[in-house]
């Protein structure tokens, strides 16, 4: 277990796309974080049911998607390609289905590698299906067994990288976002989420090692991205989503402490923090992920990416071809520009990175907290604490202060409503107890046992 006490990237200018202090080299020679940014393509099915009856059609859909995407990647001379297969819940509940699709994708990637020299990697992301039972059992039961088996079978079927969007703590986090309840968010991320990640990632690392797959990384998608999407539709203040983003870093970091080595998951917008702290490469998504959802960080997300992703796109027909193929082309051009800047020299690469940063930061506090200098400053604060909860608490306090200063200095102007909410949330952060035990005690009376089994987190 590696406890991060020092930053892997100390100078903001070194936090840049394509370069990680600890690049990842795959057996086929593909180096992630070693200088080049590669596209990472993700895709999903068009509206259709998933069942044994529809599986023949589903296989065909995935065959068409991957063949077409690989052909376009060759046509566009991409220097490397990462493909993510994010299973659909039914495919994790019937692990053989997920493994079957993994094998189809593997076979195609191998053929293109052999025939056209296309270097690639396959990331497979089984679903955290534990939440299909409410309250979920986090460490045992049929759903847990299926999930683990899904990891094993997909790894055996040819996954290079293993990831998950884990959800431990989400049982109470969704409501906490909606009620702007910061202590409950801190509890969900720093106490429950961190405990679950420890247990879960020990298992994923074991499965990866046993089956020759790399344990890549997790994401706070179910937490911070839920907040981001709610902020995007004006359901919650943007400062609240920004706070949750930075508070989520400590939770995602646990995967790396337990043995994940990257590349971090694309929808983990907390990725720049992970890269600054651990030095491992990250996937990011932004402008080209508008096919899946809107976001306020379209350009700034590129600033530190090692893989550039589209999040997900349905396999529907567009004028330019199948949507995943079109999406791959958009990613390929975005990555090519970044790589061209790198090739032109560090000064040019930094200039491009700074343009990505400058074009987003003044519009939204969620973009502001991804500024490389802000990432370094806040990461330093986060790792000054030793426990996950301590880190979450410190993140809340430091981020609130950072946003207040950014508003005051005109670097990230906030509306009066946002400022009002920043004050309210800041006051809540001030009430967080220093000791984790005190928060656990404080939450005891507030937790609804119909929503969550605390014993599943090692709590009584």
């Amino acid at each position: 277990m590696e406890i991060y006490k020092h930053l892997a990237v100390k100078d903001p200018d070194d936090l840049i796309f394509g370069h990680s202090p600890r690049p990842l080299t795959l057996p086929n020679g593909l180096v992630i974080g070693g200088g080049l940014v590669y596209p990472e393509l993700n895709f999903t099915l068009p509206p259709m049911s998933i069942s044994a009856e529809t599986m023949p059609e589903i296989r065909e859909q995935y065959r068409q998607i991957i063949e077409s995407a690989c052909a376009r990647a060759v046509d566009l001379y991409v220097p490397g390609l990462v493909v993510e297969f994010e299973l659909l819940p039914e495919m994790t509940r019937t692990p053989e289905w997920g493994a079957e699709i993994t094998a189809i994708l593997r076979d195609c990637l191998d053929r293109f590698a052999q025939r056209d020299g296309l270097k690639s990697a396959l990331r497979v992301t089984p679903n955290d299906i534990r939440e299909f039972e409410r309250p979920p059992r986090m460490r045992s039961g049929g759903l847990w067994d299926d999930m683990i088996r899904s990891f094993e079978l997909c790894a055996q079927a040819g996954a290079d990288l293993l990831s998950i969007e884990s959800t431990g703590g989400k049982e109470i986090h969704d409501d906490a976002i909606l009620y702007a309840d910061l202590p409950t968010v801190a509890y969900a991320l720093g106490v429950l989420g961190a405990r679950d990640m420890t247990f879960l990632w020990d298992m994923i690392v074991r499965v990866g090692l046993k089956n020759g797959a790399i344990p890549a990384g997790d994401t706070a998608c179910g937490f911070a991205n839920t907040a981001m999407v709610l902020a995007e539709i004006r359901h919650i203040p943007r400062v609240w989503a920004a706070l949750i983003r930075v508070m989520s870093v400590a939770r995602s970091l646990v995967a790396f402490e337990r043995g994940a080595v990257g590349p971090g998951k694309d929808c983990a917008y907390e990725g720049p923090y992970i890269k600054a702290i651990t030095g491992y490469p990250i996937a990011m998504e932004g402008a080209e992920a508008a096919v899946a959802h809107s976001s306020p960080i379209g350009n700034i997300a590129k600033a530190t990416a090692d893989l550039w992703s589209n999040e997900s796109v349905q396999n529907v027909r567009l004028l330019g071809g199948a949507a995943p193929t079109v999406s791959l082309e958009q990613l390929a051009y975005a990555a090519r520009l970044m790589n061209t800047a790198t090739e032109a020299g560090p000064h040019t690469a930094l200039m491009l990175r700074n343009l990505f940063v400058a074009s987003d930061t003044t519009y939204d506090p969620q973009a502001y907290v991804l500024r490389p200098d802000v990432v370094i400053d806040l990461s330093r604060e986060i790792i000054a604490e030793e426990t996950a909860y301590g880190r979450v608490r410190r993140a809340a306090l430091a981020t609130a202060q950072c946003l207040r200063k950014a508003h005051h200095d005109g670097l990230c102007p906030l509306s009066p409503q946002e400022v009002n909410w920043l004050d309210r949330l800041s006051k809540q952060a001030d009430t967080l107890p220093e000791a984790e035990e005190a928060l656990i005690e404080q939450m005891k009376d507030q937790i609804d046992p119909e929503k969550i089994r605390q014993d599943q987190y090692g709590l009584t």
Partner: protein
Amino acid sequence: MTIIDELREGVIQGQANVALEKVKKALEEGYAADVILNEGLISAMSNVGQMYEDGVVFVPEMLIAARAMDKALQILRPYLVAQGVKPVGKVAIGTVKGDLHDIGKKLVAMMLEGSGFEIIDLGIDAPPEKFVDAVQNKGADVVALSALLTTTMPNMKTVVDALKQAGVRDKVRIIIGGAPVNQAYADQIGADGYAPDASSAVRKVREMLGV
């Protein structure tokens, strides 16, 4: 300022204890339960809903107000029953089978409740039988279906078909919502309407029931 005004203000500010105290006081002063409900609680939530639509407040303020209303309703409910006051309609709401997304459904339920509807919350990953049961045995006037995935939206049609098969389709209005669906999809599967967000869902349900 009457006690009803004070109640309304307490709910708008999300002060549950104030709302509770004012409801008790209004009852003591002899206000009829339906007046307290309509002019105090529902009017307050309608105000908050408008403030949200105008961009003055966010969802947390709405939810905190709804929580205050809920506390007050706990006191008021027996009086409403005694007076024979009925909800404006009964809505069975759920996220369809295979889909675990909760937030959109929860917001629609909260907004409907704040507008005087009774809610039968069928939860997430809800099989068609639950919707049929809500109509057959619990008197739901409206079925509200939520889905967030392209692979679960077909399960909305499964619910529509199940209601048809159970012979209760004509007794109920069906509304759908969620990121991957739209009015065209509602038409295609034989639902009665679609709403893109929680506020318009309330308007649509009201329109469907003519209330």
